[in-house]
């Protein structure tokens, strides 16, 4: 780079130092100790500080959800909507029959089918079954509570499979609802079952494994 030609973009080989290190430290530490009245930095930075405080105040008021550690929503409208959320259909009382239907669909219908017809050769039907429609409701309650395993004859057909108890976690009322549902659906017309009946059967049989058909044959003699 020639120094004679001013047209050429010129960079000096070395960036000159215009201040010694010692004087940088000393002069600036003197400036820090001076009191300066009214500077551009003071004016604009205090303005900025006020803006920050105002912004922070609004944010803390509006968006902290009362410092609730469980609350992830920050907008008031969202929080209000969340806290007042009512699921569809809530507040409508269900009849015992409908509760029984719901439980049957969840726990029983995979084998006995939605229409109660069972599956030919594998799972016996409930519709019209003498085991379900027996005038002493204790019979179906016993089977639902403890399950039943091994060969069984239903409506003249031979079946051989394994039913485990699927109601271990339910309250007596809900077991009663299920038994009522299967006794009064698909053309079945047998008596309603109450929670007290379930409770007394429970007390009678205690905690036990699945029945065999032979054990329960006494109901048909």
């Amino acid at each position, binding site marked *: *780079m020639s120094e004679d030609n001013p047209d050429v*973009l*010129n*960079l*000096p*080989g*070395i*960036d*000159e*130092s*215009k*201040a*010694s*290190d*010692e*004087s*940088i*430290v*000393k*002069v*600036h*530490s*003197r*400036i*820090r100790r*001076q009191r*300066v009245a009214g*500077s*551009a*930095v*003071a004016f*604009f*930075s205090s*303005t*900025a*500080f006020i*803006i*920050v405080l105002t*912004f*922070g105040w609004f*944010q*803390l008021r509006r*968006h*902290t*959800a009362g*410092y*609730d*550690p*469980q*609350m*992830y*929503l*920050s907008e008031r409208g969202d929080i209000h909507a969340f806290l007042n959320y009512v699921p569809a259909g809530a507040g409508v009382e269900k009849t015992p029959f409908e509760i029984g239907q719901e439980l049957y669909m969840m726990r029983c219908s995979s084998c006995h089918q939605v229409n109660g017809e069972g599956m030919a050769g594998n799972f016996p039907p409930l519709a019209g079954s003498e085991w379900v429609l027996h005038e002493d409701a204790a019979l179906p309650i016993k089977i639902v509570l403890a399950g039943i395993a091994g060969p069984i004859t239903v409506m003249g057909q031979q079946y051989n499979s394994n039913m485990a108890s699927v109601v271990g976690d339910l309250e007596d009322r809900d077991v009663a609802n299920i038994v009522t549902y299967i006794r009064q659906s698909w053309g079945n017309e047998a008596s309603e079952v109450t929670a007290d009946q379930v409770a007394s059967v429970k007390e009678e049989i205690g905690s036990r494994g699945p029945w065999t058909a032979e054990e329960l044959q006494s109901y048909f003699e």
Partner: protein
Amino acid sequence: MKFISNICSSLWPELSGELKGRETQWSIDSSIRYPLLGMIKPAAFWFVVSLIFGLIASIKLHSPGFLGSCEWLTYGKVEPVFWNSLIYGWLFNAGLACAFWLLARLGGAPIGNGFLLTVSLSIWNVALVVGLIGILMGGTLPLNWRESLTVSGQLPYEWLEMPPFIAPILLASFIGMGLWGLLTFRERVHRASYASQWYVLAALFAFAWIYTAAQIMLIREPSQGSLQYLVGSWYANNLLMIVIVPLALACVYYLLPKALGTPIVGYNHSGRAFWSWFIFASCAGSAELINGPIPAWVTAVGIIAAFGILYPLTVFGIQFLSTLFANFTRIWDTLSLRFVLFGCIGFIVFGAYYIYGSLRSTQEVAQFSSFSNGVQLLGLLGFASMIFSGFLYFILSRLLNKELPSAALAEIHFWMQLSGVLLLVSSLITGGLQEGELMNGSTVSVLSIVVNLKSYYVMASLGMFLMLLGAIAFLVSFTLFMFSTRSEKEETGTLIGESPELEASVS
């Protein structure tokens, strides 16, 4: 043979003639020359390497088939290698080299313990190579701490992707370097301290703290559930805001009075700016987790902290720009000040976008788009990298007592870095905002939105490419600095003149 004698003369120069009042400076520079060149060398190398990976990652965003057959270079590996080599390779080496030089110079005495610094920085760079190769190799994630010592594989946390067994080595070598910084500060001759020294020391403490805390809470004793993401974003935000940015601020505070010859305008506000920066910036990480499974008040505090940066940003902006504009004619003739001018403007724009990007209304649009990457790159490349580049030119000629080997290469470095960062950052930021708006406000399919944004990613690749050219120019410049034959003028002690005293003007 010439080659060897040249490098020897660069490392152990013998100057003829008098030093003309520069004896102290020359003795300081001589004492720190070897370790600093040991940091600048890998810095220049990592600068090029990181931008090569950045370019590959950027091209893969608009041409997914590019290098598709190479399993070492899939997008998921190239992208973290870019960020990690950029931060831990280029910015850490360059930033710490600048920081340590100004610690030594402002301390006013030749440094001791150079061996500690040399060993630590060598371990740091070797560990970094191993860690990045670990990312490229890939592998399974370790299930627990014991297993992590033997298994390579990439961690899923931003800027902590290197395999876990590297972490203790990196931390130990960083503690070595940080300890050297503290000892050098303790041995200083001038008892008063200057803003540059505060920022360097704070950055040293900050990195040791955030790296240890993040490693323990994410890998050693992993925290459960969404706390992991809180720690992850806290670490990434703090690495940028209270480690890299303070190192660059330290360089600006030093170089402005040094090269302009006037004190910083409004310097008496520096203390407040320092503390408010560290208080606000260190809490701002949770702002980006808005609408995530984090208690609402945590993100609210993050957003307030991010907004609070407005206060120190105002102080910095007025201090730096007033000082620069008061001496505007000197800027263009001083290579390092050109970088600093655009670095300072980059910093103010970065701060403004950082605040803007953390607001709720912006995050509705820009969250999960390329917007936040654009803002991070503006801080890393548009601010820190610009400042460190300028500062390195300033210290290289002093360390080696040599003139700039080629003004043309320096010009290429400057213009390529400036235009590259402008293209890259503006396309990522506008592309990200547009992506968010299209995703929120239109019913067209996601695929057609992505296709629509392709031109932004092509522009980002072009910006990456320009930056790569600039980095190569810097690498060549540095090599020429080291290997050029010493001219007669460069053998004399009067090549660099004596520094005048700084005059305190009333401002």
